[in-house]
């Protein structure tokens, strides 16, 4: 039996990788994947806690997080395609019409 703290450390690492990727990557698709990584970290922590507490509500939350992630990915990719059509780049530094 693997103790729950191992899962939590892994989920923390996944989440931190996602946050780091979000902050340092410049390609929109990669940034998007970083967000998915964050959500997977969240999912892992929910499942680990659900197992620890023997309560199913955590797993239910994971279902919804997965569906939300898919919906977000669908809308996100659609917006990315629209952005690409109007300006032919997927680098966030070049998507800069709006600023201070």
């Amino acid at each position, binding site marked *: 039996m693997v103790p729950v703290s191992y899962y939590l450390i892994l989920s923390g690492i996944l989440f931190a990788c996602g946050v780091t990727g979000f902050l340092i990557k410049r390609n929109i698709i990669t940034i998007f994947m970083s967000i998915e990584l964050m959500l997977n970290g969240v999912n892992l922590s929910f499942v680990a806690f659900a197992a620890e507490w023997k309560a199913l509500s955590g797993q239910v*939350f994971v279902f919804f997080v997965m569906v939300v992630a898919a919906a977000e990915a669908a809308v996100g990719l659609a917006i990315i395609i629209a952005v690409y059509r109007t300006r032919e780049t997927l680098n966030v530094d070049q998507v800069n019409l709006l600023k201070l």
Partner: protein
Amino acid sequence: MGGAQYFTGTDYLLSLPIILLTLFALGILLIDLMIPRELKWVNAATAFVGVLFAAGGLVRIQLAQAELMLQGERVEWAFMHSMIMDHFAIYFSYLFLAGAAIAILMSVRYLEIEHEHHGEFYSLILFSVVGMMVMASGFDIVLIFIGLELMAISTYVLVGFLRSDKRSNEAALKYLLLGAFSSGIFAYGLSLFYGLTGSTNLVNIGIGVQRELTARHNHASPILVVALLTTCVGLFFKIAAIPFHQWLPDAYEGAPTSVTGFMSVAVKAAAWAMLLRILIWGLYPMRKVYLPLLIFVSIVTMTGANLAALTQNNLKRLLAYSSIAHVGYMLLGLVAFASVDYPDAAMTDGLKGILLYLLVYTFMNLGAFAVVTSLRQRDVIGDEIDDIAGLFSRAPTEAVLMLIFLLSLAGIPPLAGFYGKYFIFLSLMESGHYVLASLAVLYAVFGLYYYMRIANAMFMREATDKTRLPISVAMKFALGVSAVATVYIGIFPERFIKLVTWSAGL
């Protein structure tokens, strides 16, 4: 085996407005497929009727609750304590519906001009209102999260609705990336609270947190602090408090103007409903822990937003920064709430201040955005300060109404905006935060300066384009409702103060 043992009639009754709105939103999708291009206004009309039906559903709930109250029964909980239709939720639901109704009226002509008049627009507005209602009435973090995401995803699409417009695309992209990022952080915080307390229900989370705190002599354990911090960061992202505000000016500037108006009131009010639900109803035992965080964020927000607004030349961006500044003032109400113990006048006044602020803000800010929306013409984007110059000679009524909205936003006494600020400053004084109160008053004076810049342009400067501004009937109606509400709340505030007292359940 009947259905009765799972969901009861009460469950369906209390979710009636949500069900109705969903049906109308789906209906619009199907109707839109069948009607020709010239009849697109039918979608807007259907959406408006849907909003009215949902309001009727809310009235139905209130009547049923009042009736059962006479028999000494409180009917508020639904779906096994995961949803609560209390006064707070009903109040916010009305607020969302008002915002959606005015936004729908503003959109019809605007979308015609942009050549993007599709039924999905209205459908998405209704879906996002469904999400908001779920956020306001959810008492289970699962439900609150779903509501949040339903609202957010609908709004991402609305922001990017002008598909061939570079600014709209870019705004949608930035909003989506930061919105999804903040949702991730928020969900992580929620997962930690779940892990600490073993429940997704806010009641049990509150009890669990209290137990944790008592066991450690009111010192929060590191994991509890991390959970609180990540949750709060997610919440601050959603209400756009500095330093988590970067998405807001971009999203507001790039979005279709009617959507900007909708976002600045309904989406913001929903984020506030969620924040209050979690921080006041759920994490009440931790209020001494998050108080310093609130003080810091509110000071930074007021300072940053007011300074940034001074230099803006784009109207939508200026109003965006002003809306961030208003978030700073509202946070002060929460500061007053969190720094005293029950029962204290500062607690009720702080909460009343926030709720009243959100109500008057809905009307005055939508009114201001309605005027900006009407500046959009066939070949004029119309969101720079130069575009509003000389408005008094082009459309005198609109210019005067805009002045009313601006004065109200600045918080000048006979108008509605004053009372929101009044209660918040009052609660600050009552809870002994004199420095914060004087700082807030100072920034309110700052605010007057940049609002008057717009007024100065409207009345003192010459118009570049001297033709009269065409205003659609729906837009006139939206402007009229906003203006009447702004003035009426300002002159007869007692009734509305009673209303917010009722809604806070005090």
